[in-house]
């Protein structure tokens, strides 16, 4: 053994071969999660529903507002799933009714994530006073459940799509901010962030370059959850009559319109119901699988 600089044969087989190839974390997460059954199934189902929603209108035999038979008529050649309360073809309406739910839930979830993360990064790295003020202000909003909050404003301003998205998105901000802030605070007190501060890296670069990449994994899980909840909230709003308005085709709306005929012509309710249910279930399944992967990866990278 010699004194002086101690060369570790770092290129030795033990070090390099111990891990096959360097891989960025997001890729590792993607690969590990795709190995799970639940993620694959969830992804497949979700894509299926999205495709149905996006491409559905192209395949609809009738226009969603066309009357093809008597109200609540049973399935026939004309209308494979029967007709709805007004005599329109259920299948065509189902094929047309997904777009709103899909785009609105994704939009609302994204809005909530962006705003929530922004405030969280700010709060989590500021002085305690500023942190408290920001977070508590948002917490106040939590006192109104999302349905009540949205119904309150929509009843006064009228049911507009963008308003629904805006309100639902805003409703998620406090919760997203909480999750993101927790992760931010945990990351911000780690030494590599202090190391960047000690080097004099400007604050904005630290937030974006050091902190944000390290909270992406819990945020991705959070995003998945937000989508699920958005689906629920938006479908519920349409069901209550505060979302998409008739005569448009929308899954949530259809459920409400047709439930009087549930005993007679269940397909008019079941079909859109199943679509919503499958979509929400698939995203939730994926998120659950992702969460497991992420927990393992985060443990590995921080230890």
């Amino acid at each position, binding site marked *: *053994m010699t*004194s*002086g*600089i*101690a*060369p*570790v*044969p*770092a*290129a*030795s087989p*033990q*070090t*390099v071969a*111990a*891990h096959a190839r*360097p*891989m*960025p*974390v997001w890729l590792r997460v993607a690969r590990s999660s795709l190995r799970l059954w639940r993620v694959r199934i969830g992804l497949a189902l979700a894509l299926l529903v999205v495709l149905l929603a996006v491409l559905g209108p192209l395949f609809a035999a009738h226009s969603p507002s066309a009357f093809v038979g008597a109200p609540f008529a049973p399935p026939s050649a004309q209308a494979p799933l029967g007709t709805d309360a007004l005599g329109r073809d259920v299948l065509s309406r189902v094929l047309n009714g997904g777009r709103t739910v899909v785009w609105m839930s994704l939009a609302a979830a994204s809005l909530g994530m962006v705003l929530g993360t922004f405030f969280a990064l700010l709060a989590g790295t500021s002085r305690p006073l500023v942190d408290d003020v920001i977070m508590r202000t948002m917490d106040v909003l939590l006192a109104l459940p999302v349905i009540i909050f949205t119904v309150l404003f929509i009843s006064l301003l009228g049911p507009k799509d963008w308003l629904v998205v805006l309100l639902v998105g805003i409703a998620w901000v406090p919760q997203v901010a909480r999750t993101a802030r927790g992760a931010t605070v945990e990351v911000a007190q*780690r*030494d*590599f962030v*202090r*190391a*960047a*501060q*000690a*080097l*004099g*890296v400007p604050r904005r670069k630290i937030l974006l370059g*050091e902190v944000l*990449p*390290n909270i992406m994994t819990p945020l991705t899980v959070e995003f998945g959850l937000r989508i699920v909840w958005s689906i629920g909230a938006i479908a519920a709003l349409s069901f209550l009559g505060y979302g998409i308005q008739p005569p448009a085709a929308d899954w949530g709306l259809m459920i409400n319109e047709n439930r009087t005929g549930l005993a007679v012509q269940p397909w008019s309710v079941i079909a859109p119901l199943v679509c919503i249910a499958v979509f929400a279930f698939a995203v939730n399944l994926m998120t659950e699988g992702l969460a497991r992967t992420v927990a393992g990866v985060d443990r*590995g*990278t*921080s*230890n």
Partner: protein
Amino acid sequence: MAVARIEKLRVELPGAVDVVDDISLEIGQGEVVALVGESGSGKTTIGTSMLAHARSGARIVRGTVTIDGDEILELSPDGQRALRGKTVAYIPQEPAAALNPAIRIGRQLEEVIIDHEPGVARPERDERVRGVLGDVGLPVTEEFVRRYPHQLSGGQQQRVAIAMAIILAPRLLVLDEPTTGLDVTTQARILAIVRTLCSAQGIAALYVTHDLAVVREIADRVIVLYAGRVAESGRVDDVFRRPAHPYTLALLGAVPDIARRTSLVQIPGRAARPGERPSGCFFHPRCPIRVERCQSGEVPTVTLAPGHLVRCHRADQAAQLEARKPSPPRPVRDRQPLLTVERVNAVHGVTRVLHDVSLSVDDRACVALVGESGSGKTTLSQCIIGLHEKYTGTIKLRDKQLARSVRDRSREARRTVQYIFQSPYNSLNPRRTIGEIVGLPLQLFFRSSRREMQTQIDAGLERVGLSAGLAGYYPDQLSGGERQRVSIARALVCQPEVLICDEVTSALDVSVQAAIVELLRGLQQESGLSLLFVTHNLALVRNIADEVIVLSNGRVVESGETESVLDAPQQAYTKQLITDTPSVERASEVTRAS
């Protein structure tokens, strides 16, 4: 007459991956046997096997464990349960985690009695609880008994754990690194308690540790463990004076000792984790005297002397290897103060943590800042680097005052003072590659082209002993020692003049620690850096520092040249600290007798 005996124990993880194998040992009445090994050596596994327990997923697949003549692995689950706490007791590594936070400590003590000896009446139970609290030096008051674990200090919690273990007068104690995370002083007290109990009450003990100095202080016999196998075993005197296994020798060479300044020996390569263990002798990839036959086949057990066993093909050759080499003399340097700290008073919130602290670091000198946890040493180093702003006083670099906050400092100032953090697992951004991490300061401080930067990054990595090919890897793909080297590289590419090292080896294994310390020493001499080395480990101080400053409760207690402070301390606090630091070399007869 052996109280406990293990024979040919093998513990496996799922997938037939062996954690430990072929373990045999014996503990006699009143004897303290130390089980020494680094992380991953399997020492905790052996410890818990003496309670017929294997942690998370591991299984005992072969071998026998005999306590007082009973083969405990053969007992029914109820029999094993009866054994634990009563015949064999366990003292955990982290008492804070091992005590239920929702139950008062009195209750946690008496439940051991209740579940093992249900017939005991309440008054007698209370008496025994108080008795045992007194034995470990805790207050025997009603108030104390009603406390919750979080209302105790770390040392007190560990004493409670010891009390829980001895309350039923077991035959054998298994202590699993019980002084981890405790101050040196507290550690010394805990060790004293354990020693007294063992000799006074005739309890045998298996002391699991990685700290060779502690072994010297407390154990009668020692077993050196490497990668799940016994490397060497024997009486402490025999093994330490005439070590026969290359690993033992390497360990002894890697451990800094407070009594004598030596060149720390580092062991090349990495310890083999379960599942990655090489064939033949596990140590052969890292062994300096390996030969052909070491690479495969059974390793023989050689008896060097009665009770002194070694598992090595070349046990007789060990004498050739010198365990501890004297250190090269300290370089002469001019006494030009480079960094000065004048009368700094710092606060954390409302508490004052530093009181009028002044010190100076000379050009090309290595100054150690020593203190226990809570002494303020980390706060001081963070004031110097500009991460802690709430202080009064002046900090100057070459007569130019440094701004309190790092944001207000000039680029030059930021470049010339660099900081290395304690935890290698925390100080590198997991989402960036090594190259990006090392390159970040280059972007900040130098206007170089991409190619120049690349060259500098590669050079920086090589300078700290890492291959340039690691630049594309992510931190979690590197070991702790390698990550710490990356931190050092990141600091060095700035071409700093002052390097602040904040407990940079505390989170590393002994052998890795040696490598980092030697690296820093070499770099310091080669580039003329000044080093401010913050640590709680006085042994390290002896080895690396020219001067030492002792901090206690935010005040400078003593300072001066390392030799004079350590050999002739003036202040009571310093004297106590030195006495409490265990040492392999120092004659420990005095402490043993007490």
